[in-house]
């Protein structure tokens, strides 16, 4: 009887109370689960979020012995120094060029290889090719660069031996700044192109085989089938991966570039990451190099948000 006398407001309050109690009950029931994820959360807080907090030293004149609390604030001084430094545009351009190579040269290759593999009808051949082209992905950059090094070196490298036996001049690939970019992208292709096919191949398996049959009836040849059936079917996967790639705009692989970098190719090979390493850890300019890293990370984040927005505008799914 009493329940009927409740005003809507009281009812709402009661409902809220019940919801709260329910939430508490759920939290209590899962207390062991919280215990399980606690170490993982602590890891992310300490080694991922604490460094984000540490970015504030880019607005300070950070001195290790004074700590973040005691260091002097300098505002945007380091950012100002960065954009006005003579090296900034060189680094910016180098980073952009490598990014362009990644998007325009590397990115389409796994798609093409997947389309080709999809046309193979002998399973053993397909499996065999896949097994071989995935291998380099599991090699470290040190191994990839070392192998390239022993093959390209002037004294006894197999590539220069071939060039010489064909009657051409030897090429100093490793120290010549014209060769840095081709070498960079070829190594990226060698290591990642095969592995990159996995996700496209998986998307292709979802294509309805009847579509191909129908296309064959209409007299479409193999190229047309690829173009009109397979490619549209994996379009969404391509777009998602492209967004992720764009988000990685400035993640060109510190390790890889650092391993290729030397004093004679520096004018084309120095990118933000390697610059941060040298300025920060080798020269001890903590605040300045953090500002450089912050700039790079912020541009990356803006790019991924922008790419995602763009994809959504064109009615694609996007990544979030």
């Amino acid at each position, binding site marked *: 009887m009493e329940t009927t006398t409740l005003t809507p407001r009281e009812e709402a309050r009661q409902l809220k109370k019940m919801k709260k109690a329910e939430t508490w009950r759920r939290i209590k029931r899962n207390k062991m689960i919280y215990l399980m994820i606690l170490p993982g959360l602590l890891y*992310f807080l300490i080694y991922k979020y604490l460094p984000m907090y540490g970015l504030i030293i880019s607005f300070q004149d950070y001195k290790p012995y004074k700590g973040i609390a005691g260091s002097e604030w300098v505002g945007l001084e380091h950012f100002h120094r960065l954009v006005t430094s003579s090296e900034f545009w060189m680094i910016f351009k180098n980073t952009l060029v490598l990014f362009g190579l990644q998007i325009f040269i590397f990115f389409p290759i796994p798609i093409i290889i997947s389309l080709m593999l999809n046309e193979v009808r002998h399973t053993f051949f397909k499996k065999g090719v896949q097994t071989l082209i995935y291998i380099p992905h599991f090699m470290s950059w040190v191994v990839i660069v070392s192998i390239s090094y022993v093959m390209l070196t002037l004294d*006894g490298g197999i590539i220069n031996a*071939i060039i010489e036996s064909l009657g051409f001049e030897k090429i100093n690939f*490793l120290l010549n700044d014209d060769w840095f970019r081709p070498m960079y992208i070829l190594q990226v292709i060698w290591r990642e192109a095969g592995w990159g096919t996995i996700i496209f191949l998986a998307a292709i398996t979802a294509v309805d085989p009847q579509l191909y049959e129908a296309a064959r009836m209409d007299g479409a040849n193999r190229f047309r089938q690829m173009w009109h059936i397979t490619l549209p079917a994996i379009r969404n996967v391509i777009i998602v991966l492209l967004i992720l790639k764009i988000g990685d705009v400035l993640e060109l692989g510190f*390790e890889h570039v650092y391993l290729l970098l030397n004093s004679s190719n520096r004018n084309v090979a120095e990118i933000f990451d390697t610059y941060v390493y040298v300025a920060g850890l080798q020269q001890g300019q903590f605040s300045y190099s953090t500002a450089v890293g912050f700039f790079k990370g912020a541009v990356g*984040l803006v790019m991924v948000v922008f790419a995602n927005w763009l994809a959504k505008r064109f009615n694609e799914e996007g990544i979030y």
Partner: protein
Amino acid sequence: MAKQQRISMGSRVFDFFNYFLLALLAIITVLPFIHVVGSSFATSAEIARTKFLLFPTEFSLNAYKYIFSTDTIFRALGVSIIVTVGGTLWSMFFSTLTAYGLARRDLVGRRVINFLIVFTLLFNGGMIPTFLVVQQTGLLNSLWALVVPVTINAFNMIILRSFFMNLPQGLEESAKIDGANDFSILFRIVIPISLPAIATISLFYAVTYWNTYMHAILYLSDADKWPVQVLLRQIVVLASGINYDGQAYTDVPPPEVTVKMATIVVATVPVLLVYPFLQKYFAKGALLGSVKG
């Protein structure tokens, strides 16, 4: 009829080129490895004589004898093995716990936590602030620095989480009715039926730890703590003096080509040994994560 004939002819030409190009691609991909392995077993004389060496005619173990004649490589291999085995166990322990917890659909706060973890993939503090945290937590110049700062790889954790989320719910519920707590459900029921996923992710971690290089040069200053990748770098490139990072290895004359090749092989072989196992599981695992991530 004639039309069909023509299509199948074109189709056959297509197949020919397709198979040919793919075979070529596969061969080009592995040829450098064969060259390196072949050269590492050759004599220096043969290397100088034959330019395009793939399989040596005179088999020689000199290069291996040379690199294993000092402690350096044993020490580096030891470090790499410790970091790989220990790091994989460490990472799997915490990744599995976190993934299993976050796979619970009724967990309050799950969305926020997931977002916080995914966000670390899009943005991070960068090299220097991370270095400072590693320093403050006392890990500098200790092998822990190669492991603790990379305890959980968010991608790997997400793959595991999606795997756990796809397990049948009934199992856990019936165990719960029998009075089992969450930890015993995880260790006695969930992990045993998830072995393929666990194996895949373990291998991913193991390969990453074996290949670790950047963290070693960032966080370790003692040469006797260097893992094998850093040593490889020293022997192959820095010994020839073209890099400017100053950690040269100049007290020793530049090693011979065969020695460089043999060092590459030593740094690579463990990965090639687990590769068949990787192959068995990885495609499935890699997909789970990348599509749903």
